[in-house]
């Protein structure tokens, strides 16, 4: 599992992924972590099959007690089916996730970690020196869904929005936006069900100051590519990949 620094000024953003030992047939995912002094937030920690590699990777960066909070943007297996294992590893941590998924996520085995449901309108979470925002992204694609925005680092962790389906080991950053479109198109048309929700999200996100948009699959958008993505996504007809 490769660990890459995205930001390191006071607090740190790290992404994990592109694991060369990943089992075939499993969608590649990007996991993220913010380390802010003695507090760390693990975001979309991934599926059960990548748990071992993830645990080893985070332990190379910080002590286990540092990870006080976990965030799951929605209930999908590639996002959080490892929950039962984190529950044994981080018994005193809190899980921030859409309130509507609590009784569903408990099926993964939640005996110790505290479930903190995020209300529909979103909320903020204070770490040691910074505060992150859980921005609503409902119906993109799950009916209860959030992204994480860090106003200080100007990074938006955008879950499945901005995801691309491509070959294993693809570069971590978008280099040529136009070329990247083909890898994103089908995913957004098929997995995103609502134009209204999409346009609402685009409007909300345009207000944010973003240097980096970091999706859970595919590549990270930097600088002007963020705006290019928002324009492209706004114009795209979604929920339309069948028939």
């Amino acid at each position, binding site marked *: 599992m490769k660990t890459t620094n995205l930001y390191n000024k006071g607090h740190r953003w790290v992404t994990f992924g592109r694991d060369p030992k990943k089992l075939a047939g499993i969608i590649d995912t990007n996991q993220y972590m913010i380390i802010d002094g003695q507090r760390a937030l693990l975001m979309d920690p991934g599926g059960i099959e990548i748990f071992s*590699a993830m645990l080893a990777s985070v*332990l190379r960066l910080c002590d*286990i007690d540092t990870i006080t909070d976990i965030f799951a943007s929605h209930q999908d297996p590639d996002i959080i089916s490892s929950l039962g*294992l984190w529950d044994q590893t981080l018994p005193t941590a809190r899980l921030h996730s859409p309130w509507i998924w609590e009784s569903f996520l408990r099926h993964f085995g939640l005996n110790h970690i505290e479930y903190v449901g995020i209300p529909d309108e979103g909320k903020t979470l204070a770490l040691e020196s910074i505060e992150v925002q859980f921005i609503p992204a409902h119906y993109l694609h799950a009916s209860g869904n959030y992204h994480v925005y860090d106003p200080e680092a100007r990074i938006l962790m955008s879950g499945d929005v901005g995801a691309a389906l491509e070959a294993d080991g693809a570069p971590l950053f978008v280099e040529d936006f136009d070329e990247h479109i083909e890898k994103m198109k089908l995913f957004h048309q098929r997995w995103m069900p609502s134009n209204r929700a999409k346009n609402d999200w685009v409007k909300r996100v345009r207000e944010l100051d973003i240097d980096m948009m970091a999706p859970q699959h595919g590549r990270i958008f930097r600088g002007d590519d963020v705006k290019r993505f928002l324009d492209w996504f706004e114009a795209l007809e979604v929920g339309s990949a069948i028939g």
Partner: protein
Amino acid sequence: MLAGHLFRMMRTAKLMSLSASNAKGVAARAGDKALGFRPITDFIAEMANDTIHYATKINHLALTVSRTAVNDLRTLDGARRFAEAREQIDDSGQAAFIDHLIRQADEKRTAMHAETAEIMAQLNAQLDEIHQRVRGSTIIVSNSRTEASRAGEFQKYLDSIADSVELSARDIQLEISKCRKLIESLDTLDDSSRNTPDYRLRTGTS
């Protein structure tokens, strides 16, 4: 699977209880001719009720066993995945933390195995209870036949009731032995997973 055998056992016991109340009706109509038959029908009804009672208990116990088995597998899977993470860690402090997780999982499994063994013993005891009661029915059936022979025109009814009790008892005994075989096979499965935790061999943790 166990649930299937228990279900058939209970269904047979219900049939038995029905035979008992039929027999009671016939005995009442037979009046003095079937006086000796009444305690027999009471005994059959009791045996049927007891069978249903114990089978229900067994069902509950079996459910606990299967829940624990799932939990055990989950914990074993966790221990294996912790060991996999440990292989990728060089720092001795962090490795010690993972060893602690593995030990914790191990202890949890040991406790679960002890709990399962205890429940299995209870389960066998309940099966024994049913077995004892149903075995008693052989004597009852032969008594019934003797009593039936004194019941004049009611003899053929009472005989057919004795036949059906005999058949039911045989069915229940059959299900009991199937249950025992199943429980035995579960026990051996459990032993094999208990003795060779391969994650330990790979990592050398204790």
